[in-house]
């Protein structure tokens, strides 16, 4: 070989050597420098995690009757079979599921890199929809119908406010943090409890999702099932609510409100609430609101419900507060008795109309009750008696004992959110809201009969009745009796929690109870409806005047049996008129149901004078 040719061969060799050095450098970059990155990419190629959703706990009533369960619902999803989404399939699905084509396409666009995961299009489809999809199945590519649990509310519209519902966020940062501390990592889009015990017991009901690690191939088909963390089902909750009693209360509220509207011609009667407590523990046996809503159709009807002027979505039993009229009179009496400015035997004469501190005050329909001691005064709900009692005790004592009975602050319930603290009429409160105006004795008279600034929630009223019944113990009201894990072990059991003992003497409470006993006995304002009860009872009726020219709120608080209280309750019918014809019949029916298991209707005895 000649010299020039040899040189050219060498140059070819040199070019080859240079090329291979460049390749070795490139390989060093890929395999050594960027190894971690590509390793991660290869692993990401390889594995996918599938969440195994935990079964949400079920909710039962105190008798073990199922209130909220999960039923299988059908979910339509679309999967990329490796050739992209089939436009024809998208068209059919858009038509069958009645979703805009653009909406589906947008969802697909957003998931280009997650194409192996099925795209959920619609949850809880009907049987007809399934049938239509099956009809077209030979035209539909990559369409799956999966079964997923859907919350089912067995009690329909019963206890809707207590149970609450699920929804997607928004979850505020504080809640998120609290949940994280409880070991539950909230993800955007998770279904979480929005109201009621679904909300307050969210972390316990939810359980812990499991995870299945899957090795997948390029088509997203599972090749190997690797580690699996089994989901831990949520706790089942057993409520203190007795479904039968709850339903009886709800039906009774509805029946009476409709009666007031249709038969009495009072078109203003609207919302009504009833709360029934166990006075010996604080357990809430029933919490009923009228109107309510059906949790099964809640999501479809949300718009309509939220625009309803009767506000069916609001849990008035804890979220609304009212002037409570004559049902407040036990507070005034307690103040006068405890201060020693009045005894139960002191006689006050009621002329029907009095003029005190420049104000003309009357009893209901200006009835002159004549000479009364405390028991008679409470039985007939004499206003003039309690004006005097209030004036003797003074506003500060009245307000103090109102607070002793738990008014003006939270009852301590933690199983529900959004409780209103209400207001106790007092010198300080007036100064605060009016910018320092002073308190007048005339206002003391109003406050003494539950008017003025007094504003109390139905739950506070029921707790008030319970405290009188049980000797002054304020128990924390609660809804969840126990939580049971999936193995049947009791994970939580409620214990009655006395929050406070009212500083009221046993003697005074005894006098108050005796006075309330007289209310349901002959010549008492509640006798008409309570006479037929198989048990002894005690209570107080009330009609709270409201601003404007609207009918008064109709109220009742009470408990039974008198000697050995098992239930304490409060009933209110907004603008339901006087207590004796609005709230009392409801209370009597609920008590009748509680003690007899049926409602036969209580005969109205006509020989009673109308009273509030």
């Amino acid at each position, binding site marked *: 070989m000649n010299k020039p040719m040899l040189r050219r*061969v060498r140059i070819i060799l040199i070019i080859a050597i240079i090329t291979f050095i460049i390749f070795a450098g490139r*390989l060093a970059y890929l395999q050594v420098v960027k190894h971690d*990155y590509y390793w991660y990419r290869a692993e990401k190629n390889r594995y996918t995690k599938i969440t195994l959703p935990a079964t949400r706990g079920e909710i039962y009533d105190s008798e073990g009757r199922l209130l909220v369960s999960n039923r299988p619902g059908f979910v339509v999803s679309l999967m990329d079979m490796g050739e992209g989404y089939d436009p024809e399939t998208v068209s059919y699905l858009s038509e069958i599921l009645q979703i805009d084509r653009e909406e589906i396409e947008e969802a697909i666009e957003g998931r*280009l890199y997650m194409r192996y995961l099925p795209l959920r299009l619609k949850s809880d489809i009907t049987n007809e929809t399934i049938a239509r999809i099956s009809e077209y199945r030979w035209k539909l590519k990559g369409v799956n119908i999966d079964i997923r649990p859907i919350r089912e509310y067995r009690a329909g519209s019963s206890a809707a406010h207590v149970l609450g519902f699920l929804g997607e966020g928004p979850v505020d940062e504080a809640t998120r943090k609290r949940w994280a501390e409880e070991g539950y990592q909230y993800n955007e889009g998770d279904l979480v409890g929005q109201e009621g015990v679904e909300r307050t017991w969210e972390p316990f009901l939810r359980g812990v999702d499991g995870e299945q690690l899957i090795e997948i*191939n390029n088509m997203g088909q599972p090749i190997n099932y690797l580690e699996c963390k089994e989901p831990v089902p949520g706790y089942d909750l057993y409520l203190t609510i007795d479904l039968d009693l709850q339903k009886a209360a709800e039906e009774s509220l509805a029946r009476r409100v409709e009666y007031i509207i249709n038969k009495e011609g009072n078109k203003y009667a609207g919302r009504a609430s009833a709360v029934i407590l166990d006075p010996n523990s604080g357990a809430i046996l029933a919490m009923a609101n009228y109107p309510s809503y059906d949790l099964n159709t809640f999501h479809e009807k949300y718009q309509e419900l939220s625009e309803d002027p009767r506000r069916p979505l609001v849990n008035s039993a804890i979220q609304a507060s009212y002037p409570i009229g004559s049902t407040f009179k036990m507070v005034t009496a307690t103040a006068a008795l405890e201060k020693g400015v009045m005894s139960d035997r002191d006689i006050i004469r009621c002329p029907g109309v009095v003029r005190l501190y420049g104000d003309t005050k009357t009893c209901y329909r200006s009835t002159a009750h004549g000479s009364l001691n405390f028991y008679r005064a409470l039985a007939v709900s004499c206003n003039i008696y309690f004006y005097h009692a209030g004036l003797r005790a003074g506003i500060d004592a009245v307000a103090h004992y109102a607070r002793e009975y738990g008014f003006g602050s939270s009852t301590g319930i933690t199983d529900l959110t959004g409780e209103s603290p209400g207001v106790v009429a007092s010198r300080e409160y007036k100064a605060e809201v009016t910018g320092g105006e002073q308190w007048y004795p005339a206002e003391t008279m109003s406050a003494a009969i539950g008017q003025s600034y007094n504003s109390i929630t139905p739950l506070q009223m029921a707790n008030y009745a319970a405290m009188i019944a049980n000797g002054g113990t304020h128990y924390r009201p609660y809804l969840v009796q126990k939580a049971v894990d999936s193995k049947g072990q009791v994970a939580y059991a409620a214990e009655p929690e006395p929050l406070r003992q009212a500083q009221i003497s046993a003697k005074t409470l005894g006098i108050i109870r005796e006075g309330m006993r007289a209310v349901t006995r002959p010549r008492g304002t509640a006798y008409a409806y309570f006479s037929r009860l198989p048990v002894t009872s005690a209570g107080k009726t009330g009609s709270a005047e409201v601003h404007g020219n609207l009918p008064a709120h109709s109220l009742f608080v009470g408990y039974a049996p008198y000697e050995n209280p098992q239930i304490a309750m409060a009933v209110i019918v907004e603008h339901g008129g006087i207590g004796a014809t609005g709230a009392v019949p409801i209370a009597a029916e609920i008590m009748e149901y509680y003690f007899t298991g049926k409602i036969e209707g209580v005969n109205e005895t006509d020989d009673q004078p109308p009273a509030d």
Partner: protein
Amino acid sequence: MINRRLIRNFDFYLLLATIALCAAGTFTLYSATHGMEGLPDPLYFVKRQLLFIGVGAALMLLVCFIDYVNFKNWTAYLYVANLILLVLVLVIGEVEKGAMRRIPIGFFDLQPSEIAKVVIIITLACLLAEKEGKLPYFQDLLPALGATALPMVLIFLQPDLGTSLIYLAILLGMLYVAGVQGRHLGLLIGSGLAAAPLFWFFLLEEYQKNRLLAFINPEMDPTGKGWQLLQSIIGIGSGGLLGKGPFNSTQVRLGFLPDHYTDMIFAVFGEEMGYVGAVALLLLYLFLIYRILWIATQAKDQFGALLCCGVAVMFFFQVLVNIGMTISVMPVTGIPLPFMSYGNNALLVNLTSIGLVLNVAMRRHKLQF
């Protein structure tokens, strides 16, 4: 015909390098295909590869027995026969990936475009050897250009861009060694570049354009054209320094790497054997090319030297383009990696080419005492 001198001149280094590459190729092929679904036998590809290594080895030895000088006289026949096959493939060929490349003959499909590689090398060596290392005038190049252009056009019609590029590389490499004038080479390359837009708009198929685009930006469309490239780099990169070990390529097992046993086999090798293995393989190829070029320098005549150089350039170009593609420094052109990629025709042609080089080595002028 065979005497002691010929045996003493037999280049065992080249043979060993070839055997080593065949062994690495077969092993990687086994790793890449043993888990494939739908195979009649998990060893299907390995067995066929071994069979063709056997046939190829026989061809290689057969070629060794005949003094290569005789090929000069047969060049015309070989060339014409090859042209006929190339025309035939257009008429009766089997369609594969939208191109006609194969003629089924019994137990395997004949690929005239592969055979044309070695035929072109012999033809060019024959044409250029007469010039004794001097090509002073442009018309001196014309026979070589024409001889290459004819099969190139036929292959482009199939269409097979990658293989026709190999012919071009062989032509340029051999012209260079044969002593082409710098300005003539420049003119050739310049006119080639000038014709590039013509190619882009009139001759390149859509898939070929897409591959070139994907080369420029593989992440552009990770689910489409760039997919193959991206998965190849992910595989190689994830192998690291020492690799995941034989049979442990997750990219292959889970189907993320298309063409893993043909064009993309280096990605499998790189993932399983790591940087150390990949560099070792590069060194083996470099040694093969070096050895062939060394034999070229020892050849007794221009014809033998040019034969060797043509073979060296052919291997070099294929390694350059194939490995360059898998590590994303070259566009995807669908050129197999010699001795590694599964391919019956390529194996036969590669081993025959080695046979030619061994032949030249055996009959070199070297005084032996």
